[in-house]
């Protein structure tokens, strides 16, 4: 039973000054599911992601990934274990091309060390060619193939969001945390991204996403957790949660 929980938080707290952004939160993500996290502004959603992935230090409590404590590890170590996240503000390598952005995601899969890279050995060159092929496949799948040589900074907002997702997918995560992947983009793009999320789940990635627009999650998620004031307000299937009075109130009040 326990190993079904890919990720789990136990009594997690995060305090800024005297304010608790995360207030004794217990929640979990099951292996193979698509979990949605909703809540009004300031409810602690992104802070939660930041604490889970090590970008912020937890004030108290624990985060477990595959049963092991990852609380307060540095982000890159957490990434090494297969926990990858995207950022709310379309964080990309603006001065690199779309292709280079995706190729970067294969960092953990590169076997050659720094010295070899410095000397540009044949092994390195082979590896880079292989990575380019894999990256191109990801670009195909996400529809970015036409834009492969464009600088990431020049993409439109919607394509930038797609690119951040592509980077996340390319790193072959076990658990992928997406921060507002569907916000601010056209309905057709939403469909496309939702399709990618589903496809990722099919190939074995567990996904958890924060979304503002609750309606978009109805068909996408198996389960939804609602947060407010850093605490869990509701937890269940999309139908039940979105009709929960407390949840609705939190959105109006906030």
């Amino acid at each position: 039973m326990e190993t079904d929980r890919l990720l789990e938080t136990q009594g997690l707290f995060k305090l800024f000054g005297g304010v608790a952004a995360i207030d004794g939160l217990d929640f979990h993500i099951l292996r193979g599911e698509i979990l949605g996290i909703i809540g009004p502004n300031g409810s602690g959603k992104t802070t939660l992601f930041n604490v889970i992935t090590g970008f912020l230090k937890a004030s108290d409590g624990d985060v477990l990934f595959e049963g092991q404590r990852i609380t307060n590890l540095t982000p890159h170590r957490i990434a090494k274990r297969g926990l990858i996240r995207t950022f709310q503000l379309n964080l990309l390598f603006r001065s690199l091309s779309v292709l280079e952005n995706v190729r970067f995601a294969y960092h953990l899969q590169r076997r050659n060390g720094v010295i070899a890279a410095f000397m540009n050995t044949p092994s390195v060159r082979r590896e880079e060619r292989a990575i380019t092929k894999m990256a191109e496949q990801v670009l195909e799948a996400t529809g970015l193939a036409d834009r492969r040589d464009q600088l990431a900074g020049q993409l439109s907002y919607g394509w930038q969001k797609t690119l951040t997702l592509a980077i996340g997918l390319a790193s072959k995560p076990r658990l992928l945390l997406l921060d507002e992947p569907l916000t601010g983009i056209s309905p057709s793009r939403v469909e496309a991204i939702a399709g990618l999320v589903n496809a990722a789940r099919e190939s074995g990635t567990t996904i958890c996403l924060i979304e503002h627009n609750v309606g978009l999650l109805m068909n996408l998620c198996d389960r939804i957790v609602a947060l407010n004031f850093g605490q869990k307000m509701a937890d269940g299937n999309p139908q039940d949660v979105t009709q929960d009075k407390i949840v609705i109130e939190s959105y109006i009040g906030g």
Partner: protein
Amino acid sequence: MTTSLFLQTFMNGLMLSGLYVMTATGLSLVLGVLHIINFAHGAFLMLGAYLVWMLVGKEISSIESIPEWLQHIEMPYPLAFLVAVVAIGAFGALVNRVLYQRFWGKVLPCLIVAVGLTQVLQQGAFVTFGIHTKSVPSYFEGLITVFGARFPLERLMIIVVAVVFTTGLLLLLRYTKAGLAMRAVAQDSDAASVSGVSIPRTATTAMFIGCAMAAAAAGIIAPVFTVHAYMAEGYLIKAFMVIILGGMGSITGAIWAGILVGFFDAFGSVFFGYFTQIFLLIFVIVVIIFKPTGLFGGVVFDIFTRDE
């Protein structure tokens, strides 16, 4: 340690504390509101000192680089002091408008520009005023006896001026609209601007006050210590150490830390001589490593740790 030596050192500690608090709170205010490190803070202080010297004008020998009309000004010291405070404050406000404001939110470009400005001002002063130190004739003459120890009155005035200005700053922050605006911008500039606070104006005000504080410190130092182009460096380093120890952006922290460093310097120099400085530097580094938010908590905001 004899009682009289102790008292002397204690009074020195008070004096240094006063100086450090004045410079550090000014720097802290700018840091808090503009979210930048005004590396040129020390240079403003130096300019203030030179300005007081020029306005008092009693000991200027002909220096070509200073215009004729300036050379003939001879103000009484208190007036020169006030003029310098306002003038340097205004200059600081100008610098903000012209140089810093366009880099709002970006620490590194501001820092580079500030560093460049410092060099220009400092070396410019060196080239203009020459290598010889200047002195401003003492206005407050005489000694005052405190519990049996003799202490120059003008050094006591440093303490008085420091207390007056710092209290003034605290009152201003607490009770005026401008103060409220500055506190708001320091805490959350987006929220503040949405509530109708004009960020450029608030930032300029903060720069004005911060630089004015530096000039006030300079003005009261000028008669006591020497004035020269590189005087700024020492005070700038101290100011940085104080705000690091006090917590970056925290005014009250700067006050406590300023007092701490002032007394440490005073007593340290009696016991350790020039090693005091090395100890202090190392202590500051240790604090940065282990308690980056400073020793005195109460941080208004903190752009310098990973946690926001």
